[in-house]
């Protein structure tokens, strides 16, 4: 083993005094063993650097902020609300009622044979006709409300603390999204 080998790393790091560095360089040029050692040290130094970079990259990998994820969700909901009605859909219409009203609806409280002028006590409210009921049923809609904290959608400091938004999705009787409203 050469005496110079104890100085090889310092020489590679340019830490040796000028004269000493020149001596080591001269020796390494003519010594196969030192040349091989030098290559090995250079290689391991390079691998160590690359490993440090990889560790740093793995540990500092950026995560998607929560507000970006929440905003993406809202964007998807808006996109669905806009696109959904344009899809060709088979609407399910309520079947028309042809049968006489009297046959389908139970009549309560009013006797058909009541004498004119005689006050009839109505126990219940008047029963709507079948068409009316169908219309009322169609108007009925269900709404889903999703509370989204403001800090989940906007960068910190952009909105007052504690503020949140309600995303209200109205779903029509045929299952389509009829309305999407975002309110504070």
């Amino acid at each position, binding site marked *: 083993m050469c005496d110079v080998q104890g100085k090889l790393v*310092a020489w590679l790091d340019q830490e040796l005094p000028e004269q000493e560095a020149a001596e080591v360089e001269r020796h390494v040029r003519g010594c196969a063993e030192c040349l091989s050692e030098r290559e090995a040290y250079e290689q*391991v130094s390079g691998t160590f650097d690359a*490993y440090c970079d990889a560790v*740093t990259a793995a540990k500092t990998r950026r995560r998607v902020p929560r507000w970006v994820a929440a905003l993406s969700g809202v964007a998807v909901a808006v996109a669905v609300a806009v696109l959904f009605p344009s899809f060709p859909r088979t609407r399910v219409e309520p079947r028309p009622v042809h049968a006489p009203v009297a046959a389908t609806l139970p009549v309560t409280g009013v006797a058909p044979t009541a004498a004119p002028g005689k006050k009839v006590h109505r126990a219940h409210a008047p029963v709507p006709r079948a068409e009316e009921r169908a219309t009322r049923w169609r108007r009925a809609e269900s709404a889903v409300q999703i509370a989204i904290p403001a800090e989940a959608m906007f960068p910190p400091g952009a909105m007052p603390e504690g503020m949140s938004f309600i995303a209200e999705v109205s779903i029509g009787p045929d299952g389509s999204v009829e309305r999407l409203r975002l309110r504070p």
Partner: protein
Amino acid sequence: MSDDSLPLALPLLRFAAGPSEVTALYRELRKPLLRYLVCLGVSSDEAQDVVQDAFVSLERHLAAGGTQENIRGWLFRVAHNGARNRQTSYHRRFGEALDAEMHFVAGDATPEKALLEKEKFRRLRRAIGLLTDSERECLLLRAGGLRYREIGEVLGMATSTVGDTIERAIKKLAEKCNV
């Protein structure tokens, strides 16, 4: 490193207000400092805090008329002490299994090359686990571009001891990694 777009932390915004030496130093040394701390085993968030604190301390140091000699070594020393104060058992984490190999071999490496690189990393990780604390710290500071004298200042060691420690550490790694 993939954190180019990280915004300046609030206390450092004043540094960015105009061109100054501290701003230039921040741009130059932020990444090496982060890398050093993260490789020591400090979490990414804590490393950011430590670096930020180091630059705030530097501003105070300069404002108080402190010496401007070897600011780089000074910053590394402050960051090193900050890391030590925050975590006492950081040193073991560097040798722990991370998904670092995946990053290293990512890109357009062929499967064979990727496998070889992965194996090389695995061996290096095992070898790093065998180093002493001071050997590991010396190598990390050396990888951060510090001279032996600066490393000695950061770690409180004589320059000649730093040289010996680095030499020993590199030889250990080369031997264990079979390069």
